[in-house]
């Protein structure tokens, strides 16, 4: 246990001192500020006296294009952060000749990988939480409408889901860092997979399923990004028709917003799939690392 904590504190310090982390956080903060700016320009349109969840709209609206919402930015950046935190977790230790020195110290081998994963998770949590809080704080200043208790809960749930989504990408890149001895290979493999899942899976789903929306949806859910998108939409747009409520959408009525518990219930399959995928990647890298031969050369 003490061994794991030693690894954890060292890795945490490494993450926060690394240029990689500093550049990524600056990028994310800037992108968030940009989306808030755009959202602030447009938030007043479309609000009527009966509109609920005004505060959450900040996270989900943008200008004409509907593309540059905060939600979109986050779903774009979280995988990059996750990959950046994990792709050189194990192979850099090996390449730099630290691994055999590290493992000859009195700590169990799993302490190394657990400590590293935990440090990455905390770093990720701090980055995601601070970004969401930044947006929330600025939103509060711009529109002056305080969030309701329900909205706060929804935001907390949103933060947790985002961290889980990031953890998936991190555990995937940790897996690659165990599988590939070359750091560049691990990084490229992670990014290639991300591009494939993010860009191509939805396109492939469209092509394969044709007009059948349900099958297309099922196929595109191979991509964890789609799962994440669905969960967050349910969480942050409670009064908006989502793809689960297509039938309601066509009735032309504005559906009543769901309570948080119901939203979570709808998103439950997606959420558990995300957690399951994360656990799976971590388990594989764990087993692989535990069995690995440690040669200094």
């Amino acid at each position: 246990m003490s061994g794991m904590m030693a690894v954890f504190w060292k890795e945490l310090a490494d993450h926060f001192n690394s240029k990689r982390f500093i550049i990524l956080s600056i990028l994310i903060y800037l992108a968030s500020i940009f989306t808030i700016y755009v959202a602030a320009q447009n938030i007043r349109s479309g609000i009527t006296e009966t509109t609920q969840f005004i505060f959450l709209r900040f996270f989900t609206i943008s200008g004409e294009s509907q593309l540059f919402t905060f939600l979109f930015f986050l779903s774009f950046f979280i995988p990059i952060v996750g990959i950046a935190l994990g792709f050189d977790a194990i192979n850099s230790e090996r390449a730099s000749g630290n691994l055999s020195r590290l493992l000859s110290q009195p700590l169990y081998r799993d302490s190394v990988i657990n400590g590293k994963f935990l440090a990455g998770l905390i770093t990720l949590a701090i980055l995601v939480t601070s970004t969401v809080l930044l947006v929330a704080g600025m939103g509060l200043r711009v529109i002056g409408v305080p969030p309701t208790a329900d909205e706060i809960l929804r935001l907390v749930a949103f933060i947790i889901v985002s961290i889980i989504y990031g953890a998936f990408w991190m555990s995937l890149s940790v897996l690659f860092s165990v599988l590939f001895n070359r750091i560049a290979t691990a990084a490229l493999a992670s990014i290639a997979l991300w591009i494939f899942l993010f860009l191509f899976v939805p396109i492939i789903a469209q092509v394969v399923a044709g007009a059948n929306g349900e099958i297309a949806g099922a196929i595109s859910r191979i991509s964890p990004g789609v799962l994440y998108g669905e969960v967050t939409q349910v969480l942050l747009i409670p009064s908006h028709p989502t793809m689960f409520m297509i039938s309601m959408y066509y009735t032309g009525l504005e559906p009543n917003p769901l309570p948080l518990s119901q939203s979570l219930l709808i998103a439950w399959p997606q959420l558990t799939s995300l957690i399951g995928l994360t656990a799976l990647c971590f388990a594989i890298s764990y087993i692989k690392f535990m069995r690995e031969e440690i040669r200094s050369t």
Partner: protein
Amino acid sequence: MWFWLSLGWRSCLCAWADGKGNMGKQSIIETKDLVKAYGKFIAVDKLNLSVDEGEIFGFLGPNGAGKTTTILMLLGLTEPTSGKARICGFDPTREPLKVKRITGYLPEKVGFYEDLTAKENLDYTAALNSIPTEVASRKIDELLDMVGLSEMAKHKVGTFSHGMKQRLGIADVMIKDPKVAFFDEPTAGIDPEGIEQVLTLITNMAKQKVTIVLSSHQLQQVQKICTRVGILAKGHLVAEGSVDKLGREAIGGGKFRIKIQLSKQTGKLVKSIKNIKGVTNVESSGDLLLISCDKDLRPQIARTVVDSGSLLIQMKIEEYGLDDIYMKYFREQ
């Protein structure tokens, strides 16, 4: 309940083992029929080894002979295929933490975190060994001073030369006060001055009762500091013992070889030398005589020469370099 019972039983056992250890000289490292196979390739084949406390044991052999594999098995970093290994009585496979607590290891291509300073790197090792911060800090200063890096303590390791990294590696090994230290090619790729420093540090460690296992193929250096060497080839231990003994066995066929130069050589003199008890062979080459004998017969030979009226210009007992021994073994392979 069971937990305490078994704990009590264990401590009894330990006390018994300690008592036994005090009675005679204890082997710190012991292997019995240790085998490591990678598929069909056998890296280490039935290795039997025993190293006593305070020894500097030189582990020699060409690349790929199984030196590193053996060290890794002793450290519990690689599992043996069969056979057993013990370090201070602990099984590295079953009780890896106990073994790792008392062993230090300097790998061949030692690496440090290049973005951290020398002190920060050692801090991390101390933390991994659960050494309290204040104790660690004092110790690190001492150790850095010992290896001559105290001025570089606040510099990033990325700026260090290879020799400096090796010395830092020695400090790193010393932090946990090991009983056994393994050095894998500690002198490879550093300049002569650096080699000298590293070897002095290792010798000093041995003076503090640390048992040292040193793997190398740089023979002259090993010869200088090792009390005993073992030669490993294709996973077999082909020879083991002190450098002198190995030399006699390998080259002189177990004999002492004495070389003498005389003012004049006569057949009669050669004959009378041959008659000395213990002399097995006399060869003449130019003005030199090469005498093989069972033990060191220099005084007797000198008297025989002087008695015969001839003058002794020089007499030398042949010393065997590890190079000769090594080449001899590997020519035979």
